[in-house]
């Protein structure tokens, strides 16, 4: 319990820190949303008028309190340039990025975990080397190149086997669920293969660690076959570690899948953020970064808590530590 409270307090403190850093960093960055709005053929007076109108000339403290006060009320503000609420902007983008990540991770798990187990089970050195090479190659493929390859192979119009659309998200979004899901298949595959390869290596090495600590030998001594021992005992013991890895990968992928989103012309969170930073759309960038950071922190928090739930040894270690202290 103490751990949970401690962890929550840390979470809140970090959120506050993030809001200050994000706000300050954007003011230090050169560039100005007013001059972006005014463009190349406006006199300086127009930029000044826009700054005044947008409230950019107010003292920084007031601007911060304004924004942070909104955050406390759950109001992420309105994007200066697009005139839409940041929440709706992010929601629209998240409706692409999150399903893409979930699908990608699903593929990654389907590829990575069985391959990792198979690599651990492999007996001949040739097979083990083969798995090793698969892991290395899979992890070394640049996302962009892998995506292009998939387009060349499977996209409608350009691919050898025209199965999937390779460009864009349907105009109706999830209003056309089949079409929307279909348009995410290739991007999710290109993400899934790469993440799958690293998941495979994680699976293998954590199974290796578990085997090295004797759990598998013990299980086999109790009469299990090696395969059974690895899958039933080894995987169960590796689960907390894998959950941590998958959770953190999920958070990392929110902006990490940007390359893939660009390649497949999907207007997701990453590319949206880059555009907004480029335009110096202050309120939008501030709130988006804040949301991202809180999401990262929240995922970290959940992973930590889950980790403890899945691995009771950690809690008891805590108690021991408390007793010692």
């Amino acid at each position: 319990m103490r751990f949970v409270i401690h962890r929550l307090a840390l979470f809140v403190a970090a959120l506050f820190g993030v809001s200050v850093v994000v706000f300050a960093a954007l003011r230090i960055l050169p560039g100005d949303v007013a001059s972006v709005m005014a463009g190349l053929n406006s006199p300086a007076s127009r930029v000044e008028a826009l700054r005044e109108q947008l409230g950019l000339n107010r003292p920084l403290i007031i601007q911060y309190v304004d924004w942070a006060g909104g955050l406390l009320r759950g109001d992420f503000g309105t994007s200066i340039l697009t005139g839409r609420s940041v929440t709706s902007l992010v929601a629209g983008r998240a409706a692409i990025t999150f399903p893409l990540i979930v699908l990608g991770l699903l593929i990654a798990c389907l590829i990575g975990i069985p391959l990792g187990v198979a690599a651990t089970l492999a007996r001949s050195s040739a097979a083990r080397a083969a798995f090793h090479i698969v892991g290395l190659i899979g992890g070394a493929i640049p996302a962009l190149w892998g995506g292009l390859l998939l387009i060349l192979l499977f996209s409608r119009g350009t691919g050898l086997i025209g199965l999937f659309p390779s460009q864009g998200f349907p105009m109706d979004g999830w209003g056309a669920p089949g079409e929307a899901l279909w348009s995410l298949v290739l991007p999710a595959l290109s993400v899934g293969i790469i993440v799958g390869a690293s998941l495979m290596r994680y699976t293998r090495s954590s199974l290796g660690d578990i085997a090295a600590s004797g759990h598998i030998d013990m299980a086999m001594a109790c009469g299990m076959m090696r395969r059974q021992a690895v899958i039933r005992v080894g995987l169960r013991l590796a689960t907390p570690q894998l959950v941590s890895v998958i959770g953190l990968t999920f958070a990392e992928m929110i902006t990490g899948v940007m390359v893939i989103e660009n390649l497949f012309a999907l207007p997701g969170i990453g590319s949206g953020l880059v555009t907004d930073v480029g335009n110096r759309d202050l309120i939008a960038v501030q709130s988006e970064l804040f949301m991202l950071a809180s999401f990262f922190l929240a995922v970290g928090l959940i992973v930590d808590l889950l980790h403890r739930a899945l691995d009771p040894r950690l809690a008891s270690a805590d108690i021991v530590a408390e007793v010692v202290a």
Partner: protein
Amino acid sequence: MADNTGAHGQTGATTDASLENRAKSTKRNSRWWLWAIVAVIAVVAIIIGVNLAKPKSSTNPSVVGSGDNTADTVTIGLKLAPTNLDIRTTAGSALDQILIGNVYEGIVARDEHNQVVPAIAKSWDESKDGLTYTFHLNEHMTFSNGDALTAEDVSWSINQLIKNQYHDADSLSMVKSVTADDGANTVTITLATPNSNLLWTLTGRAGLVFDKDAKYDAKTEAIGSGPYTVAKFVVNDAITLKANPKYWGTHKAKTATVVVKYLADDNAAVNALKSGTVQVLAPITETLAAPFAKDAAHYTVKAGDDTDKYVLAFNSKGKNTADKRVRQAIRYAIDHEELIASRGGSDKALGGPIPSLDPGYEDLTGLYPHDEAKAKALMSEAGYSEAKPLTLTLTYANIYGTELGDQLRSQLAKIGIDLKVNVVEFSTWLQDVYTNKDYDLSLVDHNESHDFYQWADSTYYYNYDNTEVQRLYAQAIAATSDDSRDELLAKAAKLVSEDAPADWLFNYRVTTVWAKGVAGFPVNLNQTLLPLYDVTYAK
């Protein structure tokens, strides 16, 4: 970690082999392989099945294709997306491109040769002294919301622009009054001083007509009198235009729905065209267009005339670039033919500030021909050589790619200039170069038309201050005949070019590609002016 696994795997394998041999037979293995084979066969079967089914469905329409089968939707791919729809306050040609002539209409418009043509006004009279313009409006005009478009709306729109200092308001600074006469259906604009650019200015944002009585969020909606309405706008992604059922004029939309997709990534754009997601791409780089040009049976590739000037500005008040010899040397050192050839060859050489579609154009490419010897001589006069190079920094926005900077660096290295290339975000460029004028060299695609005023304004970021040029420009603006205006502008442009405050790398001509069956897509000026009413697509 990997070593650990390997080492353990081996010891594990030995224990395990003996245990497992005792435990059970290995029959299971054969079943495992069987499943794998079944799975592979199933996947292959699905792929073959889908492939057999696909060609049929895609050939079917083209078989029927002999009759009238114009598609009711055309999807076009553009590059730069507008951030919002508020054309009165937000800069950027992406808005002009999508909204002017499609959703909003001006009091006058311009055609694909950059000439002024009637729009909301069917004709106009100009007084002899050039101070009064009377516009005779069309009858029975309506906005897309059903409101009537009257002379009141026209004068209100222009007066609002001036009063609220909306974008481009400074181009109407000489306007004394704008008055409407609803009875006569005319609008009269009186000027304090004559302005030979007035009509052309009114073809752009300054002349757009808005509905006085409509209340809407201009950032997300648009109510105009044009042939299309904005049905949906997804920021940074797409705009759906639907034919305006209340459209009053002669440019009635030929295609019911036009979807505009914004494809920032060039590869994504090419894939979108190849896969049929879009039927038109504008712009496309010439290199990427080459495969389409070869496939003439399915695609048409065309380069259009534009007013885009790639301006390599030299800060005329910069520490090193204030020296005219350095600026001239740079102009002699640049091999324009090489630059143009490396981009594909469609762009046109441009020796001065006025492109061929603008008034006052004259071929000035002979002023500073590529001449390395002359460039070196000027540099040594200024005190620099290859052994003792001059270090200059070129700052430009990342939207133009890195190739141009690299080419310029290698061309200028030959004459003893060590060019540092600093590629930044556009907003950073705006701050450092445009606003603070803190730069040596800068590169921008100035795509605006009629923008010679930049050279007559000593406060513009070029830092160029020549009173003779300013005088000539003022005369050209005050001229009451087009001929004398053109002559004065040409004279001023030549002076500017001679002073070498910049080098005009080339006049960018936008390449457009479309799939077979598309007709009526504008090729000239299509990054700023893209009337879509005529576009059709026959499958």
